[in-house]
């Protein structure tokens, strides 16, 4: 990108006399290029440094427990035994619940705002969604604990257990504070990201495409189904993975409503734990070196999960972009 703009600027520079001004300008260019390169490299250096520190400080836990740290479900500070599975499982499952709910809803909101809502409605709703993204997560957490969880337990979970209680997913006593509540609060939190990114993607679709489709007699549904969604597909995937990334790392709100229990249960109504809430809860009072090291190891695992998911997103986008020009819809 920077090389393109430099080339674009040089013909106009040639038009002027080759004087001190031009020379000055070229040193400025070099300086600018150097600084921006340094900034870009800094990101990689910081990332590498984080990874090194995580590896170094988690080595004690990995040396002690070996790879079984990854799949052991013990977390017992009294006996100094640690395993990552409950927290890692909670992180992945709560984020999946969030994305399963916020994904379709977010896309629906974006479709409504760009294709159907009258301007007097779409502006305030769009603004409202962006404001949702600005609410601090601790506020979501407190709202989740004091309002959402009791209400869910009294109304929604009671119904779930009455009608679907035979499923292992909804078995066991329900306290309102559970994996499902954690996933739901995450869904509320990532919805604005998915909705606003998807809306921006839909706005970029050339009106001519949509108008042609309407001109051929398509209904609104057919235009959305056959033009808007396929055209914005890679943007939608990007938005969903952005939301997923945020859900994986979210800490405070989840800590409030997930129950912070190092247990793996098939039931979504049981309390669970995530990596980031375990870190938030236990870091300050971790007394043994092995406990601290195990917490850092959890951090490393979260780092790897996030990297894996982002790579997956890049891979999907890359495949779509490769597929698009060839299979360019009719």
């Amino acid at each position: 990108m920077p090389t393109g703009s430099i080339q674009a600027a040089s013909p106009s520079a040639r038009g002027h006399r080759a004087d001190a001004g031009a020379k000055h300008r070229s040193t400025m260019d070099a300086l600018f290029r150097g600084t921006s390169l340094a900034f870009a490299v800094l990101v990689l250096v910081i990332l590498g440094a984080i990874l090194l520190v995580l590896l170094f400080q988690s080595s004690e836990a990995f040396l002690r427990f070996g790879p079984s740290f990854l799949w052991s479900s013990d977390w017992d500070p009294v006996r100094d035994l640690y395993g990552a599975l409950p927290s890692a499982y909670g992180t992945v499952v709560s984020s999946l619940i969030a994305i399963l709910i916020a994904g379709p809803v977010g896309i629906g909101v974006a479709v409504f705002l760009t294709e159907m809502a009258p301007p007097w409605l779409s502006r305030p709703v769009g603004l409202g969604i962006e404001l949702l993204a600005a609410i601090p997560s601790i506020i979501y957490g407190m709202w989740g604990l004091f309002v959402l969880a009791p209400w869910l337990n009294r109304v929604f979970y009671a119904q779930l257990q009455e009608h679907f209680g035979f499923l292992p997913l909804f078995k066991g006593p329900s306290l309102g504070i559970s994996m499902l509540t954690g996933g739901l609060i995450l869904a509320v939190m990532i919805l604005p990201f998915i909705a606003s990114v998807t809306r921006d993607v839909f706005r970029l679709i050339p009106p001519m495409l949509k108008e042609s489709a309407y001109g051929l007699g398509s209904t609104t549904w057919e235009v959305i189904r056959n033009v808007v969604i396929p055209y914005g597909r890679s943007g939608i995937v990007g938005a969903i993975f952005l939301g997923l990334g945020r859900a994986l790392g979210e800490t405070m709100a989840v800590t409030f409503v997930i129950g912070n229990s190092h247990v793996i249960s098939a039931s979504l109504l049981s309390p669970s734990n995530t990596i980031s809430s375990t870190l938030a809860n236990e870091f300050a009072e971790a007394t043994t070196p092995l406990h601290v090291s195990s917490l850092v190891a959890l951090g490393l695992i979260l780092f790897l999960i996030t990297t894996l998911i982002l790579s997956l997103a890049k891979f999907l986008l890359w495949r779509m972009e490769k597929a698009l020009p060839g299979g360019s819809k009719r």
Partner: protein
Amino acid sequence: MQRRLAWSAAVMAATTLLTAWAAGTFSGAGATFPYPLYARWSHAYRALTGSAFNYQSIGSGGGILQIQRGTVDYGASEYPLPPKDLDRHGLVQFPMVVGVVVPVVHLPGTDLRPVRLTPELLADLFLGRVARWNDPRIKALNPGMDLPDLAVGIVARADGSGTTWLFTRYLSRVHPGFASRVGVGPSVKWPSGIAAKGNEGVASYVREVAGALGYVEYAYALQSGLRVVALETPGGTFAEPNRGSVHAALGREDWASNPGFELDLMDNTGPGGWPILGASYILLPREHKDPSKGRALLSYFSWCLREGAKAAEDLNYFPLPTKVVDRVEGHWKDNVRSGGRAIWP
């Protein structure tokens, strides 16, 4: 005239700075539970003497680590270090204030009478072995109380804390099964239930969840207005958590003679004494290069223990009995030194 003013202002500023320097600034770190009290003491003492005793509530584990590394002047912990650790790091440990842990319950209805439990039954509840509130064992202890057919939801502390340490130590003492299954620690693996961060987190979970049973510090039990548990004490009387029962327990034993001042009343509360309590500790280096600095630290703690008792009671902490304070100061005399010489009094 103006120059004169400027001069006197400068001199005044210099003297203030000098006295501040002479009076000294000390830093401490550790337990979160006594933080409000330490902040209040430090504020009052600064107004009185000009010495600043800054305190960061980073948690007992952090406080112990910092004083072992010597990055702070004093550490604070909610659980006592064993004597061999004190010897290894050259530290002296003494109690500052007493903390009390209270089990709290949430049962629907307007009845706010304390739920009577035996110590063993309390441990069985936290082990998940008594699943419902209308269990015959609970009913037998609470005749006439409306105990619903409701699941018992255990609410524990998610973060490591002295509160959990104290509570698990008590349950382990009264129930061998709890000792082997769960054990004692600032954070433990609870067999069942949910966990929340901080005393206020546990209190709000208990308030939200019908059938919940949790444990919080005395001040939080008082403020939250939650229903408490009355525990059976030797001789068959039930102790409710209040000032009277805590003082009854504290007056029982000459705990100041325990190594490291460990407050261990759990077997010896006597009839009517509240059993779940423990001290919050200060850690200091035994050897001070600068005797005046060491003396300044001890003067502050002496002031807190004696003059600060009223402030402690105002904030719902329990100050140490006078005879224990005397023992603590005797301990300083024998153990805190500078170049081999005692610096206290």
